[in-house]
């Protein structure tokens, strides 16, 4: 399936870009992270500590175990600092 992936804040800076489309068979967010980790050094640096990263699937907050079936967008970012 085609997935739109977005990165924000320091995750974006480490990965090196803010958006990309990937072709993947990942069943869960965790599977997708494993694929991204193996790709290049930027992703490896961004995803080195998954406890420091949040995820949203189709614009709803999710978790590593969230399923990606029929999803169209996954976003990775640090804990939010609004207000």
């Amino acid at each position, binding site marked *: 399936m085609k997935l739109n992936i977005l990165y924000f*804040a320091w995750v974006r800076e480490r990965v090196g870009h803010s958006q990309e489309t990937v072709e993947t068979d990942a069943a869960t967010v965790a599977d997708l992270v494993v694929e991204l980790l193996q790709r290049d050094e930027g992703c490896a640096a961004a995803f080195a500590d998954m406890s420091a990263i949040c995820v949203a699937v189709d614009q709803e907050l999710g978790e590593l175990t969230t399923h990606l079936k029929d999803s169209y967008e996954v976003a990775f970012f640090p*804990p939010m600092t609004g207000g």
Partner: protein
Amino acid sequence: MVARVQEAAFDFSAEVNTFQAKVKSAGALVTFTGIVRDDSGSLDHMFIEHYPAMTEAALQKIETQAIAKFGLEDALVIHRYGMLTPGETIMMVATAARHRKDAFAGADYLMDYLKSRAPFWKKEISKDHTEWVQSKATDEAALAAWSREPEA
């Protein structure tokens, strides 16, 4: 209920007047304003990034929860993004309720959730140093405290 995300500055007084004019049955109106703070004395800018496709929906969800939990008459959230300077207004919330306790608690609840459940990220930019603002353990503790509280 209004949730607005914008780059431009807003007129706090005009927003409060418009909000107040709509809530005829409220006896209490509470507002909070967040301002760019310069702790080090050397902050040039605060850059605020957000997730455009998600931000307004996230704000509306938090407002809906606050309105239901405290029986608010209405709520307003305006949050800016982009490059701001110290002293500039980042955001505001307003809550209206029949009585002050619910209006205060509603505003407090909105702020606790906006801090760690609305997709904004702040970066402090000084001449010789830039740093993403980190979330604090106390932010999550504040949310946990709300969910422990018995329903009113």
